[in-house]
C-alpha cells in the first residue's frame, strides 16, 4: 500500500466511523425510556392507584375505606405491587407511593443469570416466569428492596411492578397514572418529565426541596419524585450513591477472561519450569557449551 492509498483509506474509515456515531445518536434521540413523575405534594392518599393496580394484575384489592393501612409504613408485598404510605414530616403529612423504580441500569437485571429480570426497550423492568429459576439474587441486589418472592408456593413467582408493560405495548398509560385523580402521577419520557419537575422546583422553591429523587440515584431511575420535605423523612434512602449498580461487578467480570487465559498459561509455565526429569548434573554449574 503506498502513502496516497493509506491516507485515502484512513480518511474513509474515519469518515465512516464519525458517520456511524452521528447515526447512533440519531437513533438514541428517537428511542427513550418511559418513566413516571410522582409529585408527592399533590398526593391526597386516596389509594386509587393501589386499587387499580391490584385489579389490573389480579392481586389483593384493598378496602381503602376500612383498613387502617396508614397506621404503619408498609412495604410492597407479593400481593401488592404498589403501596401508598403516610409520613409525618417537618412540612406536615406527606403521602408517598412506592413501587419498582425501573432503574436505568437495574441491579436486578445485572444480577439475574437467566435474564428473567429484563429491562425492556420501552423502560419497564419486567420479570419473565419461564426464565426465572428462583435464586432470589435480584432481591439481594435491589437497592430499593422491590422484588418479592412467594415463599409459600411450590411454584413461586417474583412479584413486582412491571409499569403495566402489557398496557404500554397497547399504547396505554400505566393503570395507576390513569387512576390518579389529582395528577400526582405523570407519565412520559424521562427527558420531558425532568423538564416539568425542574420547572416546578424552580418556580416554587418554597413548596419543594431542591432535589428530584431518581434523577441521579443509582444512575437514574424511571420513576422520579418531588417532595416538600427532605427525602429521608418520607422513606427514601439518600445514601445509595449515583453509581449504576452494574458498575460494581463490572471490573470483576472484565477480569474473568484475563484470568481464564492468563492463569492456565502461568500454571503450564510453572509446571514446565519445575520439570526435574532432565535436570542436568548439579555439580556442573554453568557451561558455555
Amino acid at each position, binding site marked *: 500500500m503506498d502513502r496516497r492509498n493509506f491516507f485515502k483509506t484512513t480518511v474513509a474509515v474515519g469518515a465512516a466511523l464519525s458517520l456511524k456515531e452521528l447515526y447512533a445518536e440519531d437513533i438514541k434521540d428517537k428511542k427513550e425510556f418511559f418513566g413516571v413523575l410522582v409529585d408527592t405534594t399533590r398526593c391526597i392518599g386516596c389509594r386509587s392507584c393501589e386499587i387499580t393496580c391490584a385489579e389490573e394484575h389480579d392481586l389483593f384489592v384493598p378496602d381503602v375505606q376500612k383498613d387502617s393501612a396508614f397506621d404503619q409504613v408498609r412495604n410492597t408485598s407479593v400481593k401488592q405491587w404498589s403501596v401508598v404510605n403516610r409520613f409525618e414530616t417537618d412540612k406536615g403529612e406527606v403521602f408517598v407511593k412506592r413501587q419498582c423504580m425501573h432503574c436505568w441500569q437495574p441491579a436486578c437485571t445485572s444480577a439475574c443469570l437467566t435474564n428473567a429480570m429484563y429491562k425492556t426497550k420501552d423502560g419497564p423492568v419486567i420479570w419473565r416466569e419461564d426464565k426465572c429459576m428462583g435464586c432470589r439474587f435480584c432481591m439481594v441486589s435491589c437497592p430499593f428492596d422491590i422484588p418479592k418472592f412467594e415463599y409459600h408456593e411450590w411454584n413461586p413467582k417474583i412479584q413486582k411492578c412491571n409499569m403495566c408493560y402489557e398496557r404500554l405495548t397497547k399504547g396505554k398509560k400505566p393503570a395507576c397514572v390513569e387512576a390518579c385523580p389529582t395528577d400526582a402521577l405523570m407519565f412520559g419520557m424521562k427527558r420531558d418529565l425532568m423538564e416539568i419537575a425542574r420547572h416546578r422546583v424552580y418556580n416554587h422553591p418554597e413548596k419543594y426541596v431542591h432535589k428530584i429523587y431518581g434523577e441521579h440515584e443509582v444512575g437514574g431511575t424511571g420513576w422520579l419524585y418531588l417532595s416538600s420535605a427532605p427525602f429521608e423523612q418520607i422513606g427514601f434512602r439518600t445514601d445509595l450513591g449515583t453509581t449504576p449498580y452494574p458498575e460494581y461487578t463490572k471490573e470483576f467480570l472484565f477480569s*474473568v477472561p484475563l484470568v481464564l487465559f492468563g492463569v492456565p498459561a502461568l500454571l503450564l509455565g510453572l*509446571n514446565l519450569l519445575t520439570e526435574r526429569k532432565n535436570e542436568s548434573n548439579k555439580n556442573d554449574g554453568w557451561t558455555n557449551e
Partner: protein
Amino acid sequence: MNQTKMMGGQMNSTVFISEFKRFIKFLYQEVKPRGKWLTPFNVISIPIILIGIIILYIRFTQGLGSVTNLSQDFPWGFWIGFDVVTGVAFAGGAYIITFVVYIMRVEKYHSIMRVTVLNGLLAYIFYAGALMLDLGKPWNIINPIIGNSFGYNSVLFLVAWHFLLYMIAEFVEFSPVIAEWLKWEKIRKFMTALTLGAVIFGITLSTLHQSGLGALFLLAKSKIHPLWYTEFIPILFFVSSIFAGLSMIIFEGSISHKVFKHRIDSKNHIAYDEIILGLAKGAAISMFVYYFFKALIFIHGEEWTLINDFWGVWFLVEVIGFVLIPCFMFAYGVRNRSLGIIKVASVMTLIGIILNRLNISIIAFNWTAAVKYYPSWQEIVVTLMVIFTEIWVFRWIVTRMPVFQKSQ
C-alpha cells in the same frame, strides 16, 4: 476367511459377556454394606437423614416458607450462607493441593492427593448441589445451562457455570482411582493422561468462582454493613479460601487418620506429620496476608468510627479472634512441631471462615432490619442431612476404592 472373522467375533462376545458378568458380580459385592451397622455415627445420622427427607418433601410441595425462616428482607439464609458459600470455601483444599503436587511437583503431599480431591469433589456435589434445594424453580436451572437464556452480565451465571465445570474437572482428576478400583487399566491410563489438563483447568476455575462467590455480594452494597462491604470482597474470598481449604485438610485428615487407620500405610503415617506441618505453614502465611489485607482495607476506608458499637466488636472478634490468633497459633505450632496446637488452630480457622461468610451473607446483611433472620430447625436439619449424606458417600468410597493407599 469370513469364518475365522465370525469365530473371532463369537470369541469376543463370549469373553465380553463373562467379563460383564464378573463386573456385575464385583459391583454387587462392592455395593453391599460392610462392617458394623450400629456405630454411633450411623445411629445419629440415619434418623437425621430420614427427617431431612421429610422436610424436603414439605419444602417442595408447600414452598420454601413452610420450612425456612427466609423472608423478603433475608432472601438468602442458612442454606446459601452456610451450605454453599461456606462449603465451597472449605472445599478449596483440592485446588491448593493439586497446584502444589501437579504444578509445583512437591512430592511430599502426593499421599493426601487422592483423598483431598475426593473431598473436594464430594463437597462440590453436595454443597453446591444444596443450592438446588434453595431454588424456587429448580427445574429452570436448565435455562442458563443449555443456552436458553444466558445472563452473561451476571456474576451468578459465572459462578454457576464454574461450579458445573469444576465438578467435571474434579471428576476427571479423581477418575483414575475409580478406574483402578474397577481394574480398567486402559481407561485409567487415558484418564491419568488428562489429569494435568484437568488440574490446570480446575485451578483456574477455582480462582474465579471462589472470588466470584464474593463478587455476588458486591451488588448488595447498600445492605451489607460497611465494615464487611468492600470492593475487595472477591480478593478476600479467594485468599481466605486458601487457608479455609488447608485447615479443612488438617481437620478432616486428623479425623480420617483415626477412623480409617488400618487403611493407611504405616509409612504414610509417619510422613503425615510432616505434611501437617507443611500445610500449617501455608495456612499461617496465607492467613497473615489475609489479615494484612483486612487491616489495609480497614485503615484506608477510615472505618475507625465504626468500631465503637456492637458491630465493631463483632468485626474484631472475627478478624482478631478467628484470623490473627489462629494464624499465630499455626506459626507457633509449626515452630515447635506441636500438632495439637495446629489442630486447634485449624478448628478456630474454620469457625472464622464460617463467621466471615455468615456475616457477609446473613448477619451483617440488612443489619438494620427490624426482624432478624435465624435459621429454623428444619434448615439446620437439612444442612446436617447434606453433611451426613456426604460423609456416608465418602466412607463408602474410601472403604472400597484405593483412596488412602495404592491398590494391591
